[in-house]
């Protein structure tokens, strides 16, 4: 049986993990390499790095970070943030990343999804979607949640699938940071709409939230940040809990 994946997400600014991982007794909690290695050894199934660097040399910095992470981390990882072209995708994959995630640019230029899939295979093109409810309807937001595209999430996931996306990383901005649970209702609609894996993000606060997002939402993978980084939820404990509650997970780490 395919296992439901647990994915910690790390924000990287200028080569440093922001709000570092502060429970694993790391020598340097801001070092992406150290964080990635420890997570891979603690039962994480995959990692996502979100590059939030604003400076002009961002591409060089993140590529260098990926190279170093790839040397010591033998689980798959995805890199997102500011990817605008096929050339950007190629650089990141060549540095050792398994996948890239594209968010705003995918909306502005759908052909980037198709070209990325044609050039490197669907499996490495993840479309990240930020959703917010507008009058009860889930809309796609871009530019870091600042701009409403007016496109519904349900239409956009179908479009992404048709364009050749390999996976969808769906973040509910209504739920993000609330620790009140993933948006299981939206997940259930989306996972019925498309036949590609959905990574759920936003709202995971208790171990049971992860169980219901998998069982009721149908998510293939569950992503969270602070609950893992601050040690509020231990990944291995979480996976044991999920297994006990009927979700298949990888326990033999």
């Amino acid at each position, binding site marked *: 049986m395919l296992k439901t994946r647990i994915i910690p997400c790390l924000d990287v600014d200028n080569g440093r993990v922001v709000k570092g991982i502060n429970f694993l007794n790391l020598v340097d909690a801001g070092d992406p390499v150290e964080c990635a290695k420890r997570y891979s050894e603690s039962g994480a199934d995959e990692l996502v790095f979100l590059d939030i660097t604003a400076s002009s040399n961002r591409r060089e910095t993140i590529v260098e970070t990926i190279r170093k992470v790839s040397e*010591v981390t033998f689980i798959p990882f995805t890199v997102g943030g500011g990817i605008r072209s096929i050339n950007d995708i190629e650089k990141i994959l060549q540095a050792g990343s398994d996948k890239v995630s594209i968010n705003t640019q995918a909306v502005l230029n759908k052909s980037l999804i198709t070209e990325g899939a044609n050039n490197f295979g669907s499996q490495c093109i993840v479309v990240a979607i930020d959703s917010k409810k507008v009058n009860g309807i889930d809309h796609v937001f871009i530019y870091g949640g600042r701009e409403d595209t007016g496109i519904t999430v349900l239409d956009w996931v179908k479009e992404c699938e048709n364009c050749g996306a*390999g996976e969808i990383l769906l973040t509910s901005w209504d739920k993000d940071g609330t620790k009140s649970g993933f948006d299981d209702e939206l997940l259930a609609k989306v996972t019925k709409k498309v036949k590609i894996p959905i990574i759920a993000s936003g709202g995971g606060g208790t171990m049971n939230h992860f169980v219901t997002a998998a069982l009721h939402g149908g998510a293939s993978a569950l992503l969270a940040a602070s609950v893992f980084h601050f040690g509020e939820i231990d990944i291995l404990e979480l996976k044991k809990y999920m297994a006990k509650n009927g979700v298949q997970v*990888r326990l033999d780490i």
Partner: protein
Amino acid sequence: MIGIIDSKICNIYSLTNMLKKLNADFIIFDNPENIQSVDRIILPGVGAFPKAMENLSKSGLKDAIIQFARSGKPVLGICLGMQLLFDKSTEFGISEGLGLIPGEIIKIKTDLVLPHIGWNDLSIKPGCKILERVDNGADVYFVHSYRAETDTKYIAATTNYGELIPAVVYKDNVYGAQFHPEKSMKWGEIILSNFIKL
């Protein structure tokens, strides 16, 4: 010395990092020159079958790999590299493979989501050397939408995704892994170290 075939369609950096961890020496080949000097080769790959075969044919590596395999030295195909070992594929029309293991590559028949992405467990038949010390039920990382269709005698391990999928295949000195050993933590490390010691 391991020869890694660079078919120019995927990053081989993760694989070389795992080989470094295992203290294995390797050379990367993007053309057939001197390929017969290594004692084993790894053929990695992600992406589309026809493009990969086209690149291998153009560079002359296709014939070189076939010749290498016939000499009896070990060959390991990973993911798309495993699929290339077979006679042909139906991905984007019919295209010819390396023909080192009898069989063909077809789309996975399932109602489940595709690609088949993530950790899935191996059901292992005893007898294949690269699976020594790997537990039955070991979870390894898969990313693919196509699978091998071949005689059971060439299948050393399967995984279940709506149907049984060949996960490790072998014929004499030629081995293939549908999953990514270089991304599969300890089990992947054991499999690659077994291959290096063949």
